[in-house]
């Protein structure tokens, strides 16, 4: 079952990722925090995931590594700031050779619904380019609106 992914613009340094899942929050929490499970879904055909280390406690660190098409490793790591299983997680994230120019702080809420879980992840860019990232998100939203308007205009 494929649910739509939305990236609504919020605030001037945030991107929000919203997605529904057909599983209860506890199951989603496991998939978000257990290395053996992370290795099963966090990779991409172009960037297979080869490492997932998780020290799941407040102040604990995580580190994931993907194989970049160039053969180099793409590594992200960060710290868990809040763990309220299976409701809310706050963690930092920083990619090595990061062009966002600073870590992001990600607040993930797992909200139980009749069908399963609605996940809302708020990505706060803390670097000087945060505003640009947020704006690009807002622009995508704006572009969709523009395209919709264009489609309505072109409709017979």
């Amino acid at each position, binding site marked *: 079952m494929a649910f739509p992914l939305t990236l609504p613009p919020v605030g001037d340094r945030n991107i929000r990722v919203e997605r529904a899942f057909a599983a209860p929050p506890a199951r989603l929490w496991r998939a978000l925090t257990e290395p053996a499970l992370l290795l099963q*879904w966090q990779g991409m055909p172009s960037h297979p995931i080869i490492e997932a280390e998780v020290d799941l406690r407040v102040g604990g660190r995580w580190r994931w590594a993907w194989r970049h098409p160039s053969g180099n490793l793409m590594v992200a790591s960060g710290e868990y700031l809040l763990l309220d299983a299976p409701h809310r997680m706050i963690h930092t994230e920083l990619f090595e050779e990061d062009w966002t120019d600073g870590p992001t702080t990600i607040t993930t809420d797992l909200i139980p619904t009749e069908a399963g879980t609605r996940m809302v992840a708020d990505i706060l860019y803390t670097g000087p380019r945060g505003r640009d990232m947020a704006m690009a998100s807002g622009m995508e939203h704006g572009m969709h609106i523009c395209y919709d308007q264009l489609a309505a205009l072109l409709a017979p």
Partner: protein
Amino acid sequence: MTAPSPLDRSFAALADPTRRAILQHLAQGPATAGEIAARFPLSQPAISRHLRLLGEAGLIARRVDAQRRPATLAPEGLTALTDWIGGLRASYETRFAQLDRLLAALPDTDTPQKD
């Protein structure tokens, strides 16, 4: 510091609210610096400077039309920006589809797995 990429220049050009407002204005159709200046509380030289930066960022094109030189939006420049966020979206969509399959196969359990 590495040299700014075209995407960096686009982001830098868009960081200014006046330049974003100029782009919004141009979304309605081509306009000259004079026409834009008439709608903003800025001098024509200031508007021209903003137009030059938007042009260098690849976000607008200037037609050489005798003295008029109207500015138009350059959709391909905007595409680089929306491609960036589109890449982010595609990455999430790919991984979440995999997560859907994993969740469907995962049994419910109240005891989180210990390492």
